[in-house]
């Protein structure tokens, strides 16, 4: 038995608004100022129904959980209030855990998030898990632009404090913060799970967010940043937790993997590649300005970013760049299983959020790949992590299917 033998594979879904206009070249971004006249509510309705089918299929196929997230004013996501989606999926499923990852708690009144998330936990019978993101820089420009990005991190810290205390302490109690004053903090309902639902910080691995996870005894869910940054963040969390007399369990660490499964490596790349390419070129089309509103990062961090040409040109990345920078597992069931097992062992993580729908992938491909992942990849991963497989994974296999 290894520490990873009860690995959890969650079906992660971003709820794209899928249609790509014929004249897409004329749009510099698909976020913030991409005109919402491009949004057809009839198409949106059909997509919400399609995404519901996809989530239900994943639950029925035996994924360990469902994971959903929140973004604002971008084709990447039709989930600006993720709690509403969560309520829908709570009702549409029976007993599967649902990770909500999540409302940027610095952009919303923290009492409101505490209430909404507690309500979901009670309604779901205690199936909820919450991951708290700072929110991308993009969120600060559009509808949420009334919150000053300069205060983003301080608000995030205070909101996290308010939410966890509101859940774990008996109210009413008074709270005097820098941003919020509560005379009677007294959320109703309180969460069903005690002392609170399992929580994570979502981040890019910055020292500040890793420290928050350590301070609040939360897990860490790392976003799509280069693998070496992910490993460094997890090492740092183990170190900080150790200083606080706490052990980081693999179940506290989440990586996100983009995956596509077909019968052979060649077939998988042929079917997935155009969609994963436009995942970056269209669904992530953004100007640098929208990524870093003033004060959202420190001057030193900004300098690091503008000095990194690769970051500045992310939407022009080649297929090889994409594969090399992050976690894209694309291939046969063996290739994908071996890739994910290698990543989990390397990172010491016991959770994987698997994104199986990316870009403008048609529903049949999503259904095919999701089914193959559930029926053929998950058993292989479990077998390997339960000692049935070869522990010495050849790193060259990791990207063998995509070269």
């Amino acid at each position, binding site marked *: 038995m290894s520490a990873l033998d009860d690995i959890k594979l969650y079906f992660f879904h971003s709820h794209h608004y899928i249609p790509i206009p014929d004249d897409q070249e004329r749009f510099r971004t698909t976020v913030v100022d991409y005109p919402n006249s491009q949004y057809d509510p009839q198409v949106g309705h059909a997509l919400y129904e399609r995404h519901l089918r996809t989530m239900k299929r994943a639950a029925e196929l035996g994924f360990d959980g469902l994971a959903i997230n929140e973004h604002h004013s971008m084709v990447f996501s039709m989930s600006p209030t993720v709690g509403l989606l969560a309520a829908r999926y709570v009702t549409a499923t029976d007993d599967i855990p649902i990770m909500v990852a999540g409302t940027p708690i610095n952009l919303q009144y923290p009492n409101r998030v505490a209430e909404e998330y507690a309500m979901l936990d009670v309604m779901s019978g205690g199936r909820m898990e919450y991951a708290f993101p700072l929110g991308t820089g993009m969120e600060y420009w559009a509808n949420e632009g009334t919150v000053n990005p300069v205060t983003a991190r301080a608000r995030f810290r205070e909101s996290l404090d308010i939410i966890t205390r509101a859940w774990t302490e008996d109210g009413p109690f008074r709270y005097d913060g820098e941003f919020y004053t509560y005379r009677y903090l007294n959320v109703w309902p309180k969460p069903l799970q005690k002392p609170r639902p399992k929580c994570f910080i979502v981040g890019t691995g910055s020292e500040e967010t890793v420290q928050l996870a350590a301070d609040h005894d939360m897990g860490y869910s790392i976003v799509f940043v280069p693998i070496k940054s992910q490993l460094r963040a997890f090492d740092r969390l183990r170190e900080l937790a150790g200083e606080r007399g706490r052990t980081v369990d693999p179940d506290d660490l989440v990586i996100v993997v983009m995956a596509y499964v077909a019968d052979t490596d060649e077939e998988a790349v042929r079917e997935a590649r155009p969609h994963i390419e436009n995942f970056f070129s269209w669904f992530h089309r953004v100007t640098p300005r929208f990524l870093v509103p003033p004060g959202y990062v420190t001057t030193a961090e900004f*300098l690091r970013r503008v000095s990194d040409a690769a970051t500045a040109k992310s939407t022009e990345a080649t297929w090889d760049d994409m594969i090399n920078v992050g976690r894209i597992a694309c291939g046969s069931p063996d290739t994908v299983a071996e890739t994910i097992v290698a990543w989990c062992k390397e990172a010491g993580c016991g959770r994987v959020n698997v994104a199986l729908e990316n870009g403008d992938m048609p529903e049949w491909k999503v259904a095919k790949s999701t089914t193959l992942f559930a029926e053929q990849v998950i058993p292989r991963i479990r077998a390997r992590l339960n000692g049935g497989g070869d522990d010495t994974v050849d790193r060259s296999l990791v990207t063998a299917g995509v070269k």
Partner: protein
Amino acid sequence: MAGYREDRYEVNGIDTAVLDAGDGEPLVYFHGAGTAFGFDHLLPLAERFRLIVPNHPGFGASADDPAIDGLHDYVLHYLDLLDQLGVGELVLVGESLGGCIAAWFAIEQPRRIRRLALLSPFGLRVPDHPSTDFFSIPDEQVPEHLVADLSLFAGAPMPPPPEFLAERYREAASFARVAWHSPYDRKLPRWLHRITAPTLLVWGEEDRLHPVGQAAAWADLIPNAEVITFPGVGHLPVIETPEAVPAIASFLAAEVSASA
């Protein structure tokens, strides 16, 4: 023409850089939301005044002060600094963001200000002549919003070096601390009447950030104000035309008339 001496003061715990040149009556200059052009173009003012150009906290060579999150904090910061400098009565000039700070300083300390010049000041909401929200301007369009004649930027390295961009980002963040929520200070019109000093409003007629139409609104609200505008000039008259600094110097040097 002699250059500046750079002095450093600790103001309420914040390391503050102050450029100082010339002798005579103190002239304090509050700069705008960027220091990229430097301040050598102001040196002719040092021929008649002791020219004092402090760098705001969070700008230029001064340290950051995250606790400054409102324009009034700048006023209090400068009350502290001027105490250290031993400056009592003064002539005051403010440009853009610094114009709004100077206006508030003059509202709160009217008897200390002998003469006041506001250059394309930030903050007054004039519905018929709306300001352009600085934070809404795409990066590549910032130069054309600052100056009317882009040849001023000829010779600047393109793309700008990362260190230059990082310094602009830092200054934008400092500006955002006080201005992200709105390009207007909605309390200004209520209090501008408290400014008693003769006041000069200096404006470029092609200003794309704060249109020249705003000048009359300022002049209506400040009891003793006059306006000078420059054709073919954008948001930065003292950079864009050699006529601006002498015009300001001549206004500031004038004695207060017996009737004032």
